[in-house]
């Protein structure tokens, strides 16, 4: 019996020592880590953290959408010597601290917590997807961290914006995009349309905006059908559209399903006058790798291109160079994502501090008369979102290998081709 008591004491002693040691260790770790309270002279870099989906189903977006943009931005800023922060009286380089959330919500929130609470990063970048963004915005807002959105944006977020002064939405979505599209369709005498939408917030919002807008413009809606993620065959829907002579097929799904619909349209020889794909058609690989000449005349949400402005032409060139010559460009979001990073950079220079509370006021304080100067031109926020006029375009169409902006008309780089040309003749 004596021995067992001895053992018990030993274990108790050891574990208490361990706890105390851990607590001490954490304290030391904290002193060594980046911290706002440290004397100004010590600050030698700006740590920018993010929980991104590097593996899992969402990883494609880190590869094609915001990912290439922020990676290039880090390199560009550091090549310039960093961002000048008045508080420290010098230029500070930016250092990325990127974690993999494995496309899992719980992991993403945990990692954001780690970045804010343990790593005490100076700035945060947005996670991937609307659902993640929605959760992340509230968590970061509570902790007083500035968050500028990236991939994802939704009407759902609009009513929450007032409660989240630290969150700024960036990407254009249904609210801004549907009306220019419908106007363009009406101008070109499109009489009827069919909507295929993905069973998701994204698809639902576009469908809910499209239906009243199309009705108001006098365009008949032949059907609107939901398709689930992971569907492998949509022939029966396309056969129906074909038999009812649908003029405009509007497909608001994700790249996976959009590409399937596109491929099967060709397979069943269905060539509507207008064909539009939600995200997916805006990717350079849509024409360069996957569909080639068949992409001619296909529309997609977006949009910007090299003809929009010299700044955007330069951005496309730099993005291509940064990816070792691979033209992996997203003609919907990448221009505005880069603008978001420029806003961040300019806000720091303007505010002279890395204090997120000050930064958010500086960003919110920009107006039409005193905007940020970015690659898309003047940019400012209204109610936490970007006003429609700041975007370089809302609808794009592939014309001879260029994703031309075709709506709204004041931003258009080319006239829309309606009806679109026939599918290329089979030559294999």
């Amino acid at each position, binding site marked *: 019996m004596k021995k067992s008591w001895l053992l018990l004491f030993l274990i108790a002693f050891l574990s208490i020592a361990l706890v105390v040691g851990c607590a001490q260790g954490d304290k030391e770790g904290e002193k060594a880590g980046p911290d706002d309270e440290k004397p100004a002279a010590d600050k030698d870099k700006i740590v920018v953290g993010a929980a991104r989906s*590097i*593996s*899992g*189903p969402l*990883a*494609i977006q*880190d*590869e*094609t959408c915001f990912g290439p943009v922020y990676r290039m931005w880090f390199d560009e800023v550091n090549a310039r010597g960093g961002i000048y922060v008045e508080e420290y009286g010098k230029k500070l380089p930016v250092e990325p601290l990127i974690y993999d959330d494995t496309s899992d919500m719980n992991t993403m929130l945990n990692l954001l917590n780690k970045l804010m609470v343990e790593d005490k990063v100076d700035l945060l970048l947005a996670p991937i997807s609307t659902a993640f963004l929605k959760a992340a915005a509230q968590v970061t807002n509570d902790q007083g961290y500035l968050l500028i959105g990236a991939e994802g944006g939704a009407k759902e977020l609009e009513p929450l914006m007032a409660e989240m002064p630290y969150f700024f939405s960036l990407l254009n979505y249904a609210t801004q995009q549907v009306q220019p599209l419908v106007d363009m369709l009406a101008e070109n005498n499109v009489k009827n349309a069919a909507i295929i939408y993905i*069973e998701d917030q994204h698809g639902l919002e576009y469908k809910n905006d499209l239906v009243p807008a199309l009705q108001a413009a006098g365009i008949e809606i032949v059907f609107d*059908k*939901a*398709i*689930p*993620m*992971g*569907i*492998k*065959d*949509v*022939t*029966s*829907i396309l*056969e129906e559209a074909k038999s009812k002579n649908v003029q405009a097929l509007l497909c608001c799904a994700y*790249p*996976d399903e959009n*590409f*399937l619909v596109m*491929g*099967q349209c*060709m*397979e*069943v*020889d269905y060539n509507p006058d207008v064909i539009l794909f939600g995200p*997916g058609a805006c*990717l350079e*690989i849509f024409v360069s*790798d*996957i*569909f*080639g000449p*068949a992409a001619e005349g296909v529309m997609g949400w977006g949009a910007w291109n090299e003809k929009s402005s010299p700044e955007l032409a330069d951005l496309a060139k730099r993005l291509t160079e940064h990816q070792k010559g691979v033209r*992996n460009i997203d003609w919907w979001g990448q221009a505005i994502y880069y603008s978001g990073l420029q806003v961040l950079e300019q806000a720091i220079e303007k505010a002279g501090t890395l204090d997120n509370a000050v930064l958010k006021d500086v960003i919110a304080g920009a107006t039409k008369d005193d905007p940020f100067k970015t690659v898309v031109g003047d940019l400012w926020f209204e109610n936490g979102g970007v006003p429609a006029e700041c975007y370089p375009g809302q609808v794009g169409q592939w014309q001879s290998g260029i994703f031309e902006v075709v709506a709204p008309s004041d931003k258009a780089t080319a006239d829309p081709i309606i009806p679109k040309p026939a*599918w290329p003749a*089979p030559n*294999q």
Partner: protein
Amino acid sequence: MISFINILLNGLLLGGIYAITAVGLSLQYGVARILNIAHGEFIMFSAFITWMLHTTLGINPLLCLAVAGPLMFVLGYLIQKFLYKTLKDKTPSPAAFEGSSMLLAFGLLFVIQNIAVFIWGNNIEGYTFMAYSVYLGDIRLSANRLVILVLAVLICALFYLFLTRTRPGKAIRAASQDPEAAGLMGVEINRMLALCFALGALMAGFAGVLISLAYQLQTTMGMQYTIIAIIVVVLGGLGSIPGSLIGGFLLGIFGSIVSGIEPGLTMAAYYLLFMVLLLVKPSGIFGR
């Protein structure tokens, strides 16, 4: 009427793809008792190889059957020889082997997927191949899916003949029915198991090539094909090649009917059909 025939044919075309995805898994589980969760990763890998050969060297994707398939065969053989065999020698009982081989397959899934990401990235990829219609009388069919269907059936038939008519095929079947007796009769069980796993990988390789003809590719796509394959295998009966073929067609036709009525419930319908069938006839349509 035409539309009903269309739905049926579209179902058949889809079923061909499902069938070819399932055959390899059926063999691996039916004989080697390995529930290869990484099956879809072999499919993904082979599909990407095909895509790469087609887009960079301009090789006809159908010719890639002869490249990607054997490559997967070798890969499968090595994995069985170096990993599964070691595992089998070390595990005390067949039941424990089923559990731990699944864990091993999960590890493989992670490793293979990450290697694919190293090579090809996370981007969505694809190419168009024979994306046009052909007509059989009044009925319109998609050309590339027709090719897939014909090839899938052909491959399954050849494979079935191999299993029933040739010596190694018979040995594999003997090993699956009664490993001990087969061992006593001079069948080298370990070689048969390796061959079996490798053949499963070969089938996954073929499936990958065929899938790349009609679908876009992503390095994360493996799991969805694994799950479809598992469903088809269980539907048709474990280890039965004709069963997998019939199971695939059944699932395809059923999916096609549901997507004609309420497309939003297509995926749910797959699982419902599968679960009901499983309850009614647990050993599958062609199960022993």
